[in-house]
């Protein structure tokens, strides 16, 4: 049963290993994955520690249902105190690692301290071994995985690792597994690097039994049909996340050349159709996933012939393309390949690099600051591979970019540069322009890991669904079908935050939640599935509360570690100051309305039971059982 999976504490300083059962009480409160991870971080991190010091803690985990018969139960979570935001570092990826970790007998790994030499962890059927990784130090993310498989002599081993960027303490370094799967945001990989932790290899043959085997299997099939029968599953299976790109570009929700425009002029050359024509070689799925949204590609001719990889995502199109003003597929694919090799977050990179380009354009920085680099937009494509390398190895100007928003601004020391850098809580903005979409804007503004859409994005808000349906999906009203309206959007974010916290804790994929389609599984379905597999009884309402608890604890962690409060829950100044230059008639000319945004924040805090400053009230903490945290149950 999933409940027999253990937690292991690895002290990298002393080499001591301690295995523990996960108390059922904690399972009821936090389930697993991201939920239990934030509990562990909140309990084990020395308050106020430097994120890159041995006092920081790294968690790695699979969700409660990982490896089970639920489709797509293969998400892996890794957490730490973020070296970018000083708050919650939390990152989530697909692939095959966390199921293998589960089959090896573990759901959670907690790393404390710091090793004096590079090491990797070998997890195998209940056994844990810290192994020398000096020969792996400096190797890229693909090679590291291959070398470990060779060394341990098993092709079925799944490896989660960091690349050169993490070793060089690039603050937005990430963790990776397989060709593509990446725990990208919030710089957790950097913390791995600071601990001299290179990789975790897992292999196991311990089954995950089901409490009600027959029902679990039958319900899993029903669940799969529910998912596969949605239109969005079909679109994802064919185009991957790139399917939304043409739409968001037409509406005007993208960032071109940092923040210069909200559409791409030459959008056709970067459209998914072009990708299919020349580079696509097939689709693959993550563990147990019938949606198969991952694409494999290969460049067949030209100077880059032979280059291959997995992806590209909607994110790749923009981060290696649009934000930097690049509209050439081969440059984008090459960039994506390099990022995957070096192991850092392309969203963070593109945001801070585009900022540098804009500063250069505006004359705020010049060649003396960039070390001779001509950061002109027209040059971006040519410069991209070089810039990526400079960041990964912290060479020259890359060293400044590798520091992430907060520290780069400080080091540059130019107050006039601040306005142009889009970030929230020190985490860079991603590909989208949220000025005309209050729901999406509120989501990134209040996200506990800094500016990021995967804590709450209600993509279905953009569908103009009838209000009655919205009320049903978001547990009440009033709602507004219009995505530029401020009505009901706080409710959407509140509900989505709970859902994503839950999904990340049971270890399934967000694409199997109501992210893109109101027809996907929700609390009722999750409750049933958890019951059939683990025997734990939850009502849908109780699961909502679990989501609420996890999100509130993250909020508390941010409050404790970085003193984040209401003042940090705003979108960047530019969202209020500059009007949207293009797009749909309802989008064009719009800017964020501060007064309405403030109202939305008030509403949002009220839903959560937080005070006007965004601090959870005593009553809320008591209701959620958080009033005695940290409680050190394990």
């Amino acid at each position: 049963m999933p409940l027999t999976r253990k937690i292991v504490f690895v002290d990298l300083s002393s080499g001591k290993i301690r295995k523990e059962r996960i108390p059922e009480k904690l399972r009821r409160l936090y389930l697993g994955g991201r939920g239990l991870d934030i509990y562990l971080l909140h309990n084990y991190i020395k308050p106020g520690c430097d994120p890159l010091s041995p006092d920081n803690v790294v968690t790695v985990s699979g969700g409660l249902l990982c490896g089970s018969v639920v489709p797509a139960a293969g998400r892996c979570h890794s957490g730490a105190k973020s070296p970018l935001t000083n708050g919650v570092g939390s990152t989530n990826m697909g692939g095959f690692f966390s199921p293998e970790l589960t089959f090896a007998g573990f759901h959670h790994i907690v790393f404390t301290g710091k090793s004096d030499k590079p090491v990797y962890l070998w997890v195998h059927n209940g056994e844990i071994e810290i192994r020398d990784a000096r020969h792996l130090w400096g190797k890229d993310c693909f090679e590291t995985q291959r070398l470990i498989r060779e060394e341990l002599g098993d092709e079925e081993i799944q490896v989660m690792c960091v690349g050169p960027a993490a070793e060089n303490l690039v603050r937005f370094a990430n963790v990776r597994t397989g060709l593509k799967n990446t725990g990208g945001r919030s710089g957790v990989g950097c913390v791995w690097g600071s601990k001299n932790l290179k990789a975790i290899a897992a292999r196991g043959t311990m089954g995950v039994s089901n409490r009600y085997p027959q029902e679990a299997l039958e319900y899993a099939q029903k669940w799969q049909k529910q998912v596969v029968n949605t239109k969005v599953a079909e679109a994802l299976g064919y185009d991957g996340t790139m399917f939304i790109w043409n739409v968001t570009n037409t509406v005007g929700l993208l960032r071109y050349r940092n923040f210069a425009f909200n559409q791409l002029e030459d959008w056709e050359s970067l459209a998914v159709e072009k990708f299919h024509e020349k580079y696509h070689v097939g689709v693959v799925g993550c563990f147990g996933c019938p949606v198969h949204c991952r694409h494999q590609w290969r460049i067949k001719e030209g100077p880059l012939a032979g280059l291959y990889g997995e992806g590209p995502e909607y994110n790749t199109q923009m981060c290696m393309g649009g934000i930097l003003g690049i509209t050439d597929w081969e440059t984008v694919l090459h960039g994506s390949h390099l990022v995957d090799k070096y192991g850092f977050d392309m969203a963070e990179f593109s945001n801070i690099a585009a900022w540098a380009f804009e500063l250069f354009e505006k004359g705020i920085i010049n060649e003396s600051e960039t070390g001779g680099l001509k950061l002109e937009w027209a040059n971006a494509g040519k410069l991209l591979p070089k810039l990526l390398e400079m960041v990964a190895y912290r060479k020259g100007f890359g060293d400044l970019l590798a520091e992430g928003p907060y520290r780069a601004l400080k080091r540059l020391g130019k107050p006039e540069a601040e306005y142009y850098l889009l970030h929230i809580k020190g985490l860079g903005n991603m590909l989208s322009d949220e000025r005309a979409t209050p729901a999406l804007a509120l989501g990134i503004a209040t996200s506990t890991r800094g500016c990021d859409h995967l804590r709450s994005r209600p993509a279905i808000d953009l569908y103009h669904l009838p209000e009655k349906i919205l009320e049903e999906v978001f547990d009440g009203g009033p709602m507004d079908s219009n995505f530029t309206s401020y009505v009901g959007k706080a409710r959407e974010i509140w509900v989505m935050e709970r859902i994503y916290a839950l999904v990340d804790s049971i270890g399934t994929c967000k694409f199997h939640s109501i992210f893109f389609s109101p027809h996907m599984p929700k609390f009722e379905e999750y409750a049933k599935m958890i019951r059939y597999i683990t025997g734990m009884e939850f009502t849908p309402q109780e699961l909502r509360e679990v989501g609420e608890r996890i999100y509130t604890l993250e909020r508390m962690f941010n409050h404790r570690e970085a003193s984040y409060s209401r003042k940090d829950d705003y979108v960047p100044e530019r969202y209020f100051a500059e009007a949207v230059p293009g797009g749909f008639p309802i989008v064009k000319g719009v800017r964020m309305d501060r007064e309405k945004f403030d109202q939305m924040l008030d509403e949002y805090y009220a839903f959560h039971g937080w005070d006007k400053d965004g601090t959870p009230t005593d009553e809320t903490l008591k209701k959620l059982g958080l009033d005695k945290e940290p409680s050190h149950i394990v």
Partner: protein
Amino acid sequence: MPKILTVDIGKCTGCRLCEVVCSAKHERASNPAKARIHIIKLEDDRILVPVVCNHCEEAPCIVVCPTHARFRDERIGRVAVNYDRCIGCKVCMTVCPFGAIAFDWEAKRIISCNLCDGDPTCVKFCATQALQYVEAAAANQRRQREIAIRLHKSLQEFALSINW
């Protein structure tokens, strides 16, 4: 007419849900190590191949089985095992050309695909229909149709590309 389990390699996405549900069905636990089907993956080369018992007509495992525990079950058109006779000698594993027979180290017995008694679980879950369970006579028809349509299209394109 008995049906056969067909594998279309080109359609497999390597998600391994078949392994999970196979083991859940037979072992009441999700455990790919005990699944009767296994996907061999070499991601760099885009090799994704489900390997499962092909229920050979001239099955080497039946030929070598010293206790006649393995036999042909014509009712379902499968290679079946009589566990009352099986002594767990593993010779069948040795001779299987596909490596489709495994040994359950806990239950101490041979395991291989039994087509779920004529209703294969893996097929029910395979979203891309890389795995299908079809009547023997129709097994190749789908493939024929696909290739015919592709041929037709490429011939058309070829015809259009030539300036007669």
